Every structure is written in C-alpha cells, then in structure tokens.
C-alpha cells in the first residue's frame, strides 16, 4: 500500500496559516496608510474645532491658530473643560464642549453661553453620525442658528426647549425640528438641557 505524501495545501493547518499571512499583510498595509494620513486628519480636526469655537463668538476664523491663541483661553474645573472668549478685555462668554446620544451614535457639539449664563450665544455640532440628509441636517445653519441668542431661563430655571414642526415657532422657548428627523432634533435639545444642567451645577452657577 503506497501512501501519497500529503501536500501542505491539503492539511488542516493550511487555512489557518493562509489566514494569518493574509491578515498580517493587510493589517500592515492599513497601519501604514493610517500612519500616513493620521497627521493630516488630526490637524484638520484641531483646526476645524478651533474654527467652530471662534465662530460661536463671531470671531475671525481665517487664521484659526492665531485667533485662537489671541482670544480663547482653555480652562478646566473639576472634569469640565471649557473655553473663555475674551476680546479687548471684555468677557464674551464661555464655550462648553457637550456630548449626547443621537439616533445612531454620539453627538459631539459645543455651546457658547453668555457670561451670566442666561443666554445661549450660539451652538455648533462637531461630530455626529446621524442619517445623512435627515438627522445629519442638525449641522445645517438653518437648524443651528435657531439657538442663537436663545434664552436659557424660564422662571429662573434652566429651560428645556419644546420642539415644534418645521417653521412653526411661536414663542422663544420653541425650536423648529427637522422634518423626518424628530429623534435627532430631540437628541440635540435633550443634550443641551442635560449637559448645561451638569455644567451649571459643577461650576456652581446660581441665578439668585
């Protein structure tokens, strides 16, 4: 009885061996590509964050790095990081990075609040994974700009804005939601309320 010599490609180890080799090669390619693009991605992110914070206070955004160094000061109290905007020795307000649960993932945003904590100066979204064209529209001016100069207080309490149908806002505590994206719109309003409440408590802001 002759026994044919088994080839390596027929053994049960071959698939394992093959998978390891293929994985190593492709992970290697990806790691290299990631390393190559990482500095660009990071620089872009930092720049766009600076632009967003400057934009909230209506400060010039052409040269973000210089403007940021000039007007914005990063502060920290307990675990809250925030930004103070000062122009010609006048305190414009505070910008707080906030975070909340969206429909598909976390929404990262910043909100600028007046120095006395009674008004929102402006609001902007940094990162979101909402449905493009629907919830993704929380990043559009039409939605974001609604928060400009919005009163934060109702009877000395932090207000939670009411959502109403698109373009049907009647009083100053209402926000018009995005058609087809009720959940994302609600996520933003809830995020603002919850985060500002926490921030207010941590920083010991009171209105009495």
């Amino acid at each position: 009885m002759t026994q044919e010599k088994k080839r390596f490609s027929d053994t049960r180890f071959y698939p394992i061996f093959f998978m390891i080799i293929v994985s190593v090669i492709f992970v290697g390619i990806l790691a290299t590509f990631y390393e190559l693009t990482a500095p660009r991605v990071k620089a872009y992110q930092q720049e766009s964050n600076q632009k967003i914070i400057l934009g909230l206070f209506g400060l010039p955004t052409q040269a973000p790095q210089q403007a940021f160094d000039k007007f914005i000061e990063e502060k920290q109290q307990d675990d809250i990081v925030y930004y103070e905007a000062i122009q010609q020795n006048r305190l414009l307000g505070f910008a707080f990075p906030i975070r909340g649960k969206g429909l598909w993932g976390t929404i990262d945003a910043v909100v600028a609040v007046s120095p006395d904590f009674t008004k929102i100066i402006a609001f902007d979204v940094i990162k979101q994974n909402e449905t493009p064209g629907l919830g993704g529209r929380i990043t559009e001016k039409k939605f974001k700009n609604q928060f400009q100069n919005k009163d934060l207080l109702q009877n000395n309490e932090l207000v939670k804005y009411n959502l109403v149908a698109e373009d049907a806002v009647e009083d100053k505590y209402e926000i018009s939601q995005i058609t087809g994206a009720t959940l994302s719109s609600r996520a933003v309003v809830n995020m603002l309320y919850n985060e500002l409440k926490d921030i207010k408590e941590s920083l010991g802001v009171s209105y009495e």
Partner: protein
Amino acid sequence: MSKREIFMNSAFTENSVWKQILGICSALAITNLVRNSLVMGLGVIFTLALSSLTVSLIRSYIPKRIRMMVQTLIIASYVIIVDLFLKAFMPEISKALGPYVGLIITNCIIMGRLEAFAGKNSPIDSMIDGIGTGVGYSLVLIIISFVRELFGFGTLFGFQILGDWWTKWSIMVMAPSAFFMLAILIWIIKGPLSAKKG
C-alpha cells in the same frame, strides 16, 4: 469574452441593481444628494476593482472553506483605505457620508462579484468586471439621487436649481421615496426599454 464585452455586461446587461437586485440598501440610504451618491459610487468602484484584482490574483491559493473570510478581510481593508483617504483629503464629504463609507464592506454587490467572477477569472478581466459593476451601480445611484435631490431640495450638487416657487417634496428626502424611484427605474428598464429592443 472581450474586455469590452465584460465591461458592458457587468455595467449594463447584468447590472447588479436592476438585473440582480443587489446593493439595494445603500441605494436607499445615500441617494438623497447627488454629491454623496457620486462619492459613494467612486468608493464602490475603487473597492470593487481592487478587491476583484486581489482575490483573482490569489484565487488558486485561497482555501475553499475560508474563502468568505479572506474576501471580507480584503474588502474591509480597501474600504478602510477609502475611508481614511476621504477623512484626510476630503473631510467635508467624509463628514456628509458618515458611517455609509464603512458600510460599503457589507454591500452585497462586492462579495457577489468576488464569488461569481473574480474567483474564477484572470486578474485583468476581474478588475474590468469590478469597474463595470461599480459603474453600473453608480449610474443607478446617480439617476435616483438626481431626481430625489431635484424634487426634495430643489438643488443639484448643492446648487439651487428650482426657485422659491417650488414646494419641496419632503417625501423625496426620506428613504421611502428611494423605493418608489428604484421601482420606477427598474420598471422603465425592464418594461418599455427592453420591449423596444424586442
């Protein structure tokens, strides 16, 4: 089959969307803006072409039992490259597409072509087939998004086309309209258009 035939076949005759009804999920999700569809289409063409080429090159070495794993790994790698590229060089579009770039991995068209074509044919033919399939898919996305963006937003590529008099059709912005559009498109192609050819 000549190279030209392979391309025409995979892009039109055997179009993966209207003939094989594959890749429907992404056709529904990202077709409300033409720009997004275009980038998505390019991403799919790139991924399909290169993963077809790669799978075809190593097709005789891939153990039969784990070929799906290998294919997924290859597809995923190219998709991540597309994602990183967009993040680094086209950050605005990357932001707009969000998670959908990553979801190219699960696009059934790609795995379908790898199984049906790249696993059995020469590398160059496979690459042409990949490009053809990708072009056919992009074509469908662009046709659908053209109509949806025009009626839903009154714009094309973000430029205002229809004036203020136009009442925007909210339904066009939402996913269900893609169902209607896709169905109408398939009907036109399979009905009136095919009938004429006899």
